[in-house]
């Protein structure tokens, strides 16, 4: 089976498509429809790692993983009402390579374009709702992530490769027709302290149960907390930003929405390609954990 053939499976996981109003509810009750399923998968640490890797990325020894999403940014000033600022459409394009048993090296980048909160049109300026100023918003190309090593022991971020792995939060659970992984990202040690990223990825149970599938289609949602970006011109005011996203894992750039792809090809063509040369750089003093 080709990986892209799996996409209809995400719909199957919705699992409720034909249920309607009370007539259907009554029918379901009459047929003895049971309670909803909500269980935590009891896996040993290695299997937990493998299945999280399979959901979030793939179990191939070397692969490129493309996530596409929309997200909305909210300003959270201290002791004031949070306010929505701008929405974005973007990708995270990452690659991994197996470097040992259950041990992978990963690198990646992100590219996002700002869109109007209400119309969804691409924009290049917005009103900062905290200051009232119109501020220019440039596209966001994040290419400075140092990379990381992930294993059942945790995560080593490659800005501090000699440090021991930090525990990685990945909890797998079943919710009716879906298997979900709740994850909290371990940020590079050198990143600002006001940073948190958490998310959930979900795939249909029937695909998850097919162990022959090393790559699974997922729906993704998540959020992150981060310091004021320079374009917000907050001049040291206390507070931070918050953003929430929703999207999916795509197999390749051929599946990117056309408008986004055209713009990315025009303005950042290099970010639509996979540069695996990062894997050729040695990692001196890498912690063995």
């Amino acid at each position: 089976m080709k990986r892209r053939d799996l996409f209809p499976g995400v719909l199957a996981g919705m699992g409720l498509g034909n249920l309607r109003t009370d007539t259907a509810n009554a029918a379901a009750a009459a047929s003895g429809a049971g309670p909803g399923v909500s269980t935590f998968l009891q896996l040993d640490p290695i299997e937990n790692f493998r299945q999280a890797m399979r959901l979030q990325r793939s179990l191939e020894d070397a692969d490129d993983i493309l996530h596409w999403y929309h997200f909305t940014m909210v300003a959270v000033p201290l002791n004031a009402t949070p306010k929505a600022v701008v929405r974005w459409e973007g990708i995270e394009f990452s690659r991994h390579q197996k470097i040992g048993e259950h041990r992978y090296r990963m690198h990646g980048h992100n590219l996002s374009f700002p869109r109007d909160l209400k119309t969804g049109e691409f924009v290049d300026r917005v009103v900062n709702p905290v200051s009232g100023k119109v501020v220019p918003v440039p596209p966001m190309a994040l290419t400075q992530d140092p990379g990381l090593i992930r294993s059942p022991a945790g995560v080593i971020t490659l800005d501090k490769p000699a440090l021991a792995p930090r525990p990685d939060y990945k909890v797998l659970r079943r919710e009716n027709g879906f298997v979900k992984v709740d994850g909290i990202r371990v940020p590079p040690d050198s990143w600002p302290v006001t940073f948190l990223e958490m998310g959930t990825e979900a795939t249909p149970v029937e695909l998850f149960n097919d162990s022959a599938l090393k790559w699974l289609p997922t729906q993704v949602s998540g959020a992150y907390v981060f310091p004021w970006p320079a374009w917000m011109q907050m001049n040291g005011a206390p507070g931070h930003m918050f953003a929430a996203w929703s999207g999916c894992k795509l197999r390749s750039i051929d599946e990117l929405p056309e408008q986004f792809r055209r713009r990315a090809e025009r303005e950042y063509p290099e970010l639509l390609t996979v540069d695996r040369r990062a894997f050729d750089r040695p990692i001196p003093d890498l912690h063995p954990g």
Partner: protein
Amino acid sequence: MLEALRKALSLPDTIPDASRRLTIAALPLGALGIASTEALSRGAADPLPAAATGLADDFIEFPDRREKFKALFRLERDLRDEGTTLTTYQFMTYAVVYGSRPQPIVRWQGMEFSYFRRIRDLTWRIHAHNLSYPMHLTTGEFVSYAVNPFTGATLDIRPMKLLDDPGVLHGRQCYLPLDSKTTDWLDTFHVIRREGDLIKSEHIRPTPDGWPAMFIESSCSTVTRRDFLDTTITALPFQSAGFYVFPFPSWMQMGERPGHMIGSWSGRRAVNGVSDLPLRFRERVQRENPELLSPRWGELERSLSPVIAEALES
């Protein structure tokens, strides 16, 4: 495409009342004057055709606020004159302390039970309650304590029962909390977009007067394209994910530390009602608060304040 969408999504303003509930699903297709997926399969113009290349990615436009509101209410509640919506979810709460790395605190499993009645034109009165039980972050076992990673204190965490929501009017003018002191309706950011064969409704809700200043709630509800276009469905089965920012609760014992909490949830509509709740959760509610497994219709019998009555007239 917009014209086809308008046709397909133009739900009637007059929606059969509750006494005709059982007949709605039995009506012949098209009896409500609406296109349906079955109609599309018979050759009607597809309002949401596949993209020529790549994943379909559109913002869906509506002819006016009424149509957009109906699409939202069908996604989040139910377009019948009287109904209930039960949502089941898990969520994690995080503490964000300025100058420190944010930390996860505790996981929860919960439900939101809302009950609503159409009181005028396209305006519904909604009341709701929430109940959530704390769970261990990684094992998922029910717990009654957690460690505050910032203070080291062991926290006593009780089930979270939200029973004092004043209720709200929701209509094409947007939201008006029933304890509002003004007739000003609160607007929201709301976008419905298509993502391949899924429809996503992204909604950022306002902070009502009197709520903690640091509060905002956003959600993304996902339904299938097939369900979305089948207008015989008055309450769409959705998957939902969302986030909210709120002040430190007292049980966190944060003193004067500047910061706030974040909650992130993932859940779904319990399409079959209470019987569709996860078993272990439902059994605990039955044991401890069985009254919360039923809608509290009495809330809707309380009279509306003069301010709210005036807002309804305007």
